[in-house]
C-alpha cells in the first residue's frame, strides 16, 4: 500500500499506509491523525481538510477540479500549494507523498 506522510503544524510526522482509492483525507481520518477535520465528509463543501503539498509533489498530482479552488478561498491561510485532501485520491503513484497540515482548519 502507498505510504503517505502527514506532518502536523508542530512538526510531528505520521507515516501511514493508505489503501488505493481512498482519499488523503480519509487516510487521515481513519487513522486518527489530528489536524484534518473534514466536517462535510468529503463533499468538497467545507475546506476543513486543507493541506499544503510540497512543490515537487504538488505538480505531480492530478489538477484541481472546478470548485476546489473556490473552496480554498475559504480555507485557513491558503497558499499556492494548498489542496483539499478529500480531492487527492491515493494510488501507487502517490507512494511517499508528504502533506503539511495548516496550523488549524478554522
Amino acid at each position, binding site marked *: 500500500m502507498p505510504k503517505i506522510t502527514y506532518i502536523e503544524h508542530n512538526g510531528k510526522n505520521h507515516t501511514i499506509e493508505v489503501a488505493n482509492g481512498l482519499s488523503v483525507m480519509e487516510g487521515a481520518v481513519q487513522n486518527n491523525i489530528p489536524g484534518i477535520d473534514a466536517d462535510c465528509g468529503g*463533499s468538497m463543501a467545507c475546506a476543513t481538510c486543507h493541506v499544503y503539498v510540497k512543490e515537487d509533489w504538488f505538480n505531480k498530482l492530478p489538477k484541481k477540479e472546478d470548485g476546489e479552488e473556490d473552496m480554498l*478561498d*475559504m480555507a*485557513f491561510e491558503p497558499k499556492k500549494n494548498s489542496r483539499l485532501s478529500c480531492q487527492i485520491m491515493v494510488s501507487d503513484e502517490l507512494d511517499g507523498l508528504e502533506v503539511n497540515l495548516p496550523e488549524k482548519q*478554522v
Partner: protein
Amino acid sequence: MIKTDALIIGAGPTGLFTAHQLKLIGLDCIIVDNLDKIGGQCIELYPDKPIYDIPAIPECTGEELTNNLINQLKPFNIKFHLSERVDEVKKNNSNWEVKTNKGTKFSTPNVIIAGGVGSFEPRKFSPKECEKFENKSILYSVKDKTIFKGKTVSIFGGGDSALDWAIELSKNSNVNLIHRRDEFRGAQHSVDKVHELNKNGKINLLTKFQLKMVNGTDKLESIEIESDDKEIKKLETDYILGFFGLIMQLGPIAEWGLNIDKKTVAVDTEKFETNQKGIYAVGDICTYPGKLKLILSGFHEGALAARACFKLARPNEKYRFEFTTSSKTIKNRLGVKE
C-alpha cells in the same frame, strides 16, 4: 419563559422530520437554528447538489429535500426561532431551561440536539490581532451600512458577498477589495462591474493578496497585506469586512455536560438519549456503534427520540403506537378527512 414539550436545536432535515414525528404523536415543539433560514447543511452547503439516497426519492437536491420537509410540516403550526443560537442548557427540577444568544428562554422536559456538525459561524481572519477589533472595526456581516459613509473599507473575499458589498459601498466609501487570487467565484456580472469600477478608480482592487497584519492601538488604523511572492502593502483603513463563508463549530454544546468525542455526542440506540436524561442527539451529531452519517439515519433517530419525549412530556399518559394510514387521531392532527 416559553414552555414547550420538546425543543429541537437545528432546522436541518433531521430536525424538521423530528418535529413532524413529535407533532404526529401529539406533542408540541419549537425549533431553534443559528442560520437565518431553514434547511441546515442541505441549504447552506449544497442546495444544488443532487442527493440519491433518500428512500423513495430517486434524486433530489438539498433545496428540494428541504422544501419537501417544510411542506410535510404544513399541517402543523411549528414555531421557528432562526438566527438564534442556543447558548445555555441548565437543569431546573424535571425541566431543562434553555437560553439563546438573543436572550430567549425556554422551559422544556426534552431537548433534542439535531445540530449536524455544530452551528454555522462566519470564518474569521487568521491574525490574532484581529480579535480586539472584532465587531467594532472588523466585521463579518453588515448590519448598518451607513457607518461606512466617507470611510475607507477594506473588503476581503471572492464570492458574491464580497463583490456585492464592494459595489454597494463604493458609492459612498473608499473601497479596497482584496482577494487571494485573480478569479472570483461570484456572479459574472458582479465581477465585470467590479473590474469596471476598478478602472474608474472607484474600487481599489488588489488580487493575490491576503491579510497579514492589522495595526492600531485603540482604533484600527491600517492593515498590511501580503502577496504570494511576499510583497507587502500597507493600506490605511477604518473598517475591514471579511467574507469567507461559514464554518460549522460545535460551540456551546460542548459545555452542557454531554459525552462528546470528536465533535459527536454519544447516545443510546433506544431513545437516542445522551448521558443527560431528557437531552437527545439525532442526525450527524450523534454517535453509537454502527452510526452512519446519512439523512435517512437521522429520520429514524428522530422518530425514536420523539417517542422517548412523550414519556417525559406526558408522564401520566400512555403512548400508543398508531399508523398514519389508519389512526383517526393522527388524521385529525394532520387535518385530513376520512
